[in-house]
């Protein structure tokens, strides 16, 4: 298998897309990525597009083919990847695989979503379609509900009084909103940068014990990347970012998680281990991490499932500041899903965009990590632990 590099990145403003349809959002990100890479559209040999719910948002299925058409790429292969909120990550992973396999030299990957067209009630309905429909559907489970259940279990598993855990979870929201407020492409740019723990804890409950400010927003947006074979990369750029390892894992119905414990998803553990093994790296070697903080508790669970902290240790580590931009492991310096926004089909590509920006030293003031990170990682979760995907990136091809 060949080494693969990311040579161009693009990212729309996240939030409400007032003037653009999904196709136009993706085209905007794709053209940025192609221009950033210095490749021509005619050089793009395939399109890998994450998109979770376009049929419900705009009455559009098969969006990848139409994106290829709008961009003038047709008739190259263009495929939509759907893994709920991990859609773009699995699209990027597949793109890397096909380039590594030698089938294509230059490809476009990314994702797009317009969840805000649906409104909260219908968006909650369509998002919950990524739950196990036969058993979790009639129970009326929602995603905040799933993570509310996980938060209660976390408090029980580790003997943390719920009020204390809620305050520690709130610190995740405070941190990620502080970062998101500094990110010009974030949904909450310039907003909620000085959020207080009490405001998070005292905002209204969405699903116990999660409040509105424990939850990421519904969002519109797109992000795109140009990937190419590593041997070709320096033809286009002096600063390629290499894909060192990838992982993907799957989970079944929520009730089938081992021991009924939602805080230790096997799909994430397996996917992260696969990525670390391929990259020849360990959590302690990662310098920048963009992970799936769809809810505050989700960040804690993710950190533990990937092995950055032991089981039950992420809440205290967060309270200690270890996940701050200047901490032991900077987590979601871009604002994460909480502060940056979560256009679900685009999120994985957005996470990669921000890791690449960090590695080029191009992240905005207040977001850029110093020194420029050598190794970075993304973690993306789809459904209630149904699809997990990890990508490990590096500034050099070095694997151990």
């Amino acid at each position, binding site marked *: 298998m060949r080494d693969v590099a990311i040579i161009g990145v693009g990212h729309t403003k996240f939030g409400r897309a007032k003037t653009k349809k999904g196709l136009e959002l993706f085209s905007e990100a794709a053209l940025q990525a192609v221009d950033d890479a210095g490749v021509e559209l005619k050089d793009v040999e395939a399109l890998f597009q994450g998109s979770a719910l376009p049929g419900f948002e705009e009455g559009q299925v098969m969006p990848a083919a139409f994106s290829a058409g709008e961009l003038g790429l047709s008739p190259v292969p263009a495929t939509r990847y759907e893994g709920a909120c991990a859609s773009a990550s699995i699209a990027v992973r597949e793109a890397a695989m096909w380039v590594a396999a030698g089938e294509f030299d230059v490809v476009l990957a990314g994702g797009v979503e317009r969840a805000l067209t649906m409104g909260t009630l219908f968006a909650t309905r369509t998002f919950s379609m990524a739950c196990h429909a036969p*058993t979790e559907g*009639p*129970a009326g489970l929602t995603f*905040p*509900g799933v993570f*509310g*259940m996980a938060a209660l279990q976390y408090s029980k598993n580790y003997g943390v009084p719920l009020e204390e855990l809620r305050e520690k979870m709130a610190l995740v929201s405070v941190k990620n909103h502080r970062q998101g407020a500094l990110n010009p492409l974030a949904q909450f740019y310039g907003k909620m940068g000085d959020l207080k723990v009490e405001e998070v804890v005292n905002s209204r409950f969405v699903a116990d014990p*999660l409040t509105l400010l424990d939850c990421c927003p519904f969002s519109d947006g797109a992000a795109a990347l140009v990937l190419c074979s590593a041997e070709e990369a320096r033809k286009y750029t002096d600063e390629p970012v290499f894909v060192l390892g990838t992982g993907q894992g799957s989970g079944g119905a929520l009730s*089938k998680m081992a021991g*009924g414990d939602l805080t230790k998803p096997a799909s994430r553990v397996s996917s992260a281990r696969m990525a670390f093994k391929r990259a020849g790296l360990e959590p302690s070697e990662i310098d920048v991490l963009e992970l799936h903080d769809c809810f505050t508790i989700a960040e804690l669970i993710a950190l533990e499932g990937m092995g950055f902290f032991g089981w039950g240790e992420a809440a205290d580590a967060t309270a200690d500041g270890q996940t701050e931009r200047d901490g032991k492991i900077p987590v979601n310096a871009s604002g994460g899903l909480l502060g940056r926004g979560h256009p679900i089909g685009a999120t994985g590509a957005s996470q990669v965009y921000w890791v690449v920006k960090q590695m080029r030293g191009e992240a905005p003031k207040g977001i850029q990590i110093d020194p420029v990170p050598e190794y970075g990682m993304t973690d993306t979760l789809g459904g209630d632990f149904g699809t997990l995907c990890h990508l490990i990136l590096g500034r050099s091809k070095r694997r151990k």
Partner: protein
Amino acid sequence: MLTLSEYEEGLRSGKLLGLRCASCGGVTCHPMPVCQWCGGRSLERTKLSGAGELTTFTVIRVPSEGFEGEVPYIPCLVKTEEGPCVVGRLDYDAERATQAAQELLGKRVRMSGAYTYKGDKFSGGAHSCPVFEVTE
């Protein structure tokens, strides 16, 4: 053999049905084509007691479209005494559940009936889940 439709029919008649594995003796619930414990494929229909332990729950206050009239309601995860976990609804006062969340975890529960969601244009018809009540 037990289909998901038959499983739901069982719920509506007050029974929690599953499958017992001829290889390992484990019980699979909801029904799946292979044993959830050992992967065995020789499975016979069995009836679970409906008793178990409350593993976790939440109180939904912002629902999906179609559930607006029901808030607040309480989805839950129950570990049955036969082994498998099932997702259902907890029949309990929502405000009391919020106040006593941690104390409720681990409580004994028993299936007291079924909740049937009438369905929407996406659900392929009506669907049912078990309802549990706290017995201690």
